[in-house]
């Protein structure tokens, strides 16, 4: 099978672009149907901007326990696992910190200037912390302590990409790549040349934008960047990657970090943590054997654990 046999489909979701690539044209329609089903399920579970989502109801429950769906339980488990594996650097209780920066509505609306920041100045303080999330997965019951407010943005999109890819591969039997705003998961038998992925600051960048093209054959690849989901609050530039220790946007020496891992969720967990860990990130990634590409604000690149070097003239 050649690369030309790959069938592509794309559509808008969650204010970003979803791309489905399948190795059989016959799989395109069922793949789209499966993906839309998973994405609708995830949206109803954990959208911060839907009043009827489980996450919104939990955030408004005032610390009372709540029964939740299997999907929301899985999403919460993934978020808590990310927190645990990163020593709390990727923390799901940053909902209030983001809302305090005005990110309490869809990002397109926020960027258009519709934000009404609740907090304009002064330090936010540490977020409540992931241990305030009391999840009983067996009973599918959850409770938030000490006013914790959830945002699953660091893991939910990647989890959705993993789940879409897994289900499409299993149901159609073909190779599949799912990209949700640049969070990429692949499953099934890949094309012979592998899945080609351009890594760049912005997932919507044109193919010739500065970056690097690599191939993967399994797992996931995710990129976290402080340059795209960024806005201003009272003239101060801010972005969406919150440092749990301060409750403020992470002050990092990296503008963009791409990581390949066994799943897209793990890749995104590591790339987000790398932004927050700043100068300590390369050693942390190397210790785990995670291939990564880290781009400094001046465009210079550092790679870890077998990530290939940039092609000449590729730029950052």
């Amino acid at each position, binding site marked *: 099978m050649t690369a*030309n046999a790959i069938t*592509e489909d794309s559509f808008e979701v969650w204010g970003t672009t979803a791309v489905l*690539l399948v190795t059989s044209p016959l799989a395109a329609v069922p793949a789209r149907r499966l993906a839309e089903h*998973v994405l609708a399920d995830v949206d109803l579970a954990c959208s911060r901007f839907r009043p009827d989502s489980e996450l919104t109801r939990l955030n408004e429950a005032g610390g009372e*326990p709540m029964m939740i769906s*299997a999907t929301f339980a*899985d999403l919460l*488990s*993934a*978020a*808590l696992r990310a927190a*645990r594996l990163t020593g709390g650097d990727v923390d799901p209780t940053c909902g209030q910190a983001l809302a305090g920066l005005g990110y309490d509505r869809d990002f397109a609306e926020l960027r258009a200037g519709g934000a009404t920041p609740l907090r304009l100045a002064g330090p936010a303080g540490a977020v409540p912390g992931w241990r305030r999330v*009391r*999840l*009983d997965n*067996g009973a*599918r*019951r959850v409770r938030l302590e000490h006013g914790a407010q959830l945002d699953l943005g660091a893991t939910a999109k990647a989890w959705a990409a*993993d789940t879409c890819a*897994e*289900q499409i591969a299993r149901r159609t039997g073909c190779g599949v*790549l799912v*990209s949700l705003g*640049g969070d990429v998961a692949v499953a099934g038998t890949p094309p012979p040349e592998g*899945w*080609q*992925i*351009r890594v*760049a*600051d*912005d*997932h*919507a*960048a044109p193919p010739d*934008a500065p970056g690097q093209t690599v*191939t*993967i*054959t399994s*797992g*996931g*690849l995710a*990129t976290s*960047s*402080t*340059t*795209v*989901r960024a806005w201003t609050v009272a003239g101060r530039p801010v972005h969406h990657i919150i440092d749990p220790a301060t409750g403020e946007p992470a002050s990092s020496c990296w503008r963009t970090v791409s990581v*390949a*891992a*066994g*799943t897209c969720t793990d890749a995104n*967990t*590591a790339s987000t943590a790398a932004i927050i860990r700043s100068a300590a990130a390369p050693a942390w990634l190397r210790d*785990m*054997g*995670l*291939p990564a590409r880290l781009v400094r604000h001046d465009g210079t690149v550092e790679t870890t*654990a*077998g990530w*290939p070097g940039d092609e000449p003239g590729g730029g950052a």
Partner: protein
Amino acid sequence: MPVYDSRRAAGQRDAGLRRVGRITWRAAAAGLAAAAVAALAFAQHATAGASTPGTSTPGTSTPATSTPGTSTPGTSTPGTSTHRSRHKHASIVIPARPPQPAAGSGSGQVTSGGS
């Protein structure tokens, strides 16, 4: 007047001791078996807890509030249960193979970047 048969009495005493010994050994064996079963069950429980790291850490698990009667383990969908199996790992999973340099910019390319 009955004659005290010391030989027969000693025989009965020895038989009784043997019987008590057998019962003691059987009780000990049963206790050992029960302990082994309990240890096995505990080990399986511990393994299951480790397979869902998000809920197994001391800070997040809530065994005291668990209500077995409301537990619905059979309702998870195939997709979500498969996802759970992906997250059995206690650490971030490295890829089977690191990314490779691309030969060219062929069709079917996507971009991974901030969003």
